[in-house]
């Protein structure tokens, strides 16, 4: 009889040790790393239109993409050069040479994940940008802060106040 190869622990049990874990980095980054992180953060701000992005999440995305998204990583220099020349995220992704890489970086920030399948790296969950658009009415699952029966209250207006 054949043994089937499924007798393994679920791959999430070691999640805490992956680059996507919720730990701050231990070692101080090298000067080259620090420069690359700063550059990636600047590119990310230009692509998302947000200027309060978490630098630790930014570093995790950059590190995970170096492993799992080589095409995007190869485009980072071009993205950095272009970041200062555009006025909006829409303008940025309209540049054909960098469009795919740009959208991949946006997706990583919003979904909190880099890569696919068993290779996927979670870089953020509570702080993933997808949580922000409805943060006035929905808590990220497992992060409820309203107390018992908070959901009985009327939700906010559908169009967010600016």
């Amino acid at each position, binding site marked *: *009889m*054949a*043994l*089937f190869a*499924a*007798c*393994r*622990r*679920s*791959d*999430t*049990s070691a*999640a*805490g040790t*992956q680059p*996507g*874990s*919720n730990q701050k980095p231990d070692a101080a980054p090298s000067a080259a790393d620090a420069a690359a992180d700063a550059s990636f953060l600047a590119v990310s701000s230009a*692509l*998302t*239109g947000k200027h309060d992005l978490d630098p630790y999440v930014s570093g995790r995305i950059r590190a995970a993409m170096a492993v799992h998204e080589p095409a995007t990583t190869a485009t980072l220099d071009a993205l950095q050069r272009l970041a200062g020349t555009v006025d*909006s995220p*829409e303008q940025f*992704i309209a540049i054909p040479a960098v469009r795919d890489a*740009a*959208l991949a970086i*946006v*997706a990583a920030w*919003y*979904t*909190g*994940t880099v*890569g*696919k*399948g*068993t290779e*996927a790296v*979670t870089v953020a*969950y509570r702080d993933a940008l*997808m949580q*922000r*658009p*409805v943060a006035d*009415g*929905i*808590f*990220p*699952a*497992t992060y*409820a802060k309203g*107390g*018992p*029966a*908070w*959901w*009985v209250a*009327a*939700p906010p207006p*559908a169009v*967010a106040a600016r």
Partner: protein
Amino acid sequence: MKKPTFNNGDVEADVIVVGSGVVGALVANQLVAAGHSVVMLEAGPRLKRSEVVQNWRNASFERRLGSDFQGPYPQSPHATAPLYFPANDYVALTGPDASSFRQGFIKAVGGTTWHWAASCWRHLPVDFKMKSAYGVGRDWPIAYADIESYYCRAEEALGVSGPNDPQRQSPRERSRPYVADMIPWGHGDSTFAEVVNPHGYNLVPIPQGRTIQPWNERPACCGNNNCQPICPIGAMYNGIHTVDAAEKKGAVVLEEAVVYRIDTDAQNTVTAVHWYDRDRVSHKATGRQFVIACNALETPRLLLLAANEQNPTGIANGSDQVGRNMMDHSGFHCSFIADRPIWLGRGPAQSSCMVGPRDGSFRADYSANKIILNNISRVPVATQQALALGLVGDALDAEIRRRAVYGVDLSISLEPLPDPTNRLTLSTSRVDGLGLACPDIHYSLGDYARKGYDKACEQLRHIGSLFNAEEFNITTALNANNHIMGSTIMGSDPRDSVVDENCRAHDHANLWLPGGSAMVSASVVNSTLTMAALGLKTADAIERAL
């Protein structure tokens, strides 16, 4: 207080319970409270709630979108449960609707109610008489009146909040109020009711195993919207709460103990079960009464694995019905964007459900259905859809908000009939980590439920029109709902059933098989409360036998 006695790794107790999910735990808890010595043998490990929560928080976007509720749960290498990301193919599925039977269940102390929605429904009185009333399926050998008091006790054990207004109850026949009044509705539930109820869909509050005040050492529900795969604060009922209660009273739980063999004597009384520990060393548990409550997939698997000289086709299988008549609430989803804000994701995962289509004379012809307003946050789906449109910046945020606020998902359940060709057998080619045969399951939805699908689609299209639905979609591939039933079916005739009205095996006077596997009709409602009621009925019968 009587306690189990250990001797060189073997154990002896009045009652041996195999399986530590909600049913096994309820039986163990009642019998230890009555002064008997009880051992629970659980194939899987003990879990830490915080670890599972952290595993889920760290899950990839893809697995979150795919509802990988199995993934966050660690497994013992000797006690495999299905996984789907990727699939581990522990169960081999065949038949025209094989992919609809991809079940999820947890092998760990506390069982599968670690990750459920805590929906605690009763069957209708007529659900017990499908053959007499509608000419389909089978009648139970008991009536609603025979189980009603057990439903009350199960609601008390699980801490069920439900509507005390009879207009909102399904069924209305009940002898005691719920433990607490209904879990209050949010904006989405109320809005939906205003729209659909004038058309007879009868959206009612779902009775749920949680409370909005602290209750029985559980905190109040704080709407973490994470019932599946895990309540982060333990407000929702989980089987582990009853296991903990039983252990405090002196029941002994042995985890990572995989039962594989059942001994019987000349009268076909069960004398012992044997289990492998985590080091694959075999031990023996002897007792006076034996309960197998491993869910309706693992219970028949064990009974077949344990076939012995006296019972060559499997323990308790004189009828050849062990593993047959497998049912689940095969289901599907309907999603759309409504014309008004719904704000799914505020509160527990399932709080309201349309039960109008739950019963009627049509059941002579096709399956009933129920339609749950699936109150799980739409944020991940909205994000996937908005990103696919190539949006960025403010436009991306606005689109995520629009889709999350106006998006609707409905979860529909069908009622397959018990069909002896829907069955579990032992694989002749695949074994698990202990060398025990893996399960094979053949599943065909059947014409009755397939016609019920078509009728449900008509209802869904009408509901969508009431909301001027955009991007209206009904899934065509059916999904499992993990409500496995029927595989040690209850009946009064030992020739075509496995257990009697107290879930005692016809073939073995001291063997009890309570739970979903004993259920005779699926109805369309979640099976857990009925399983729990059957467990308590079994516990009463075991007390009389001891």
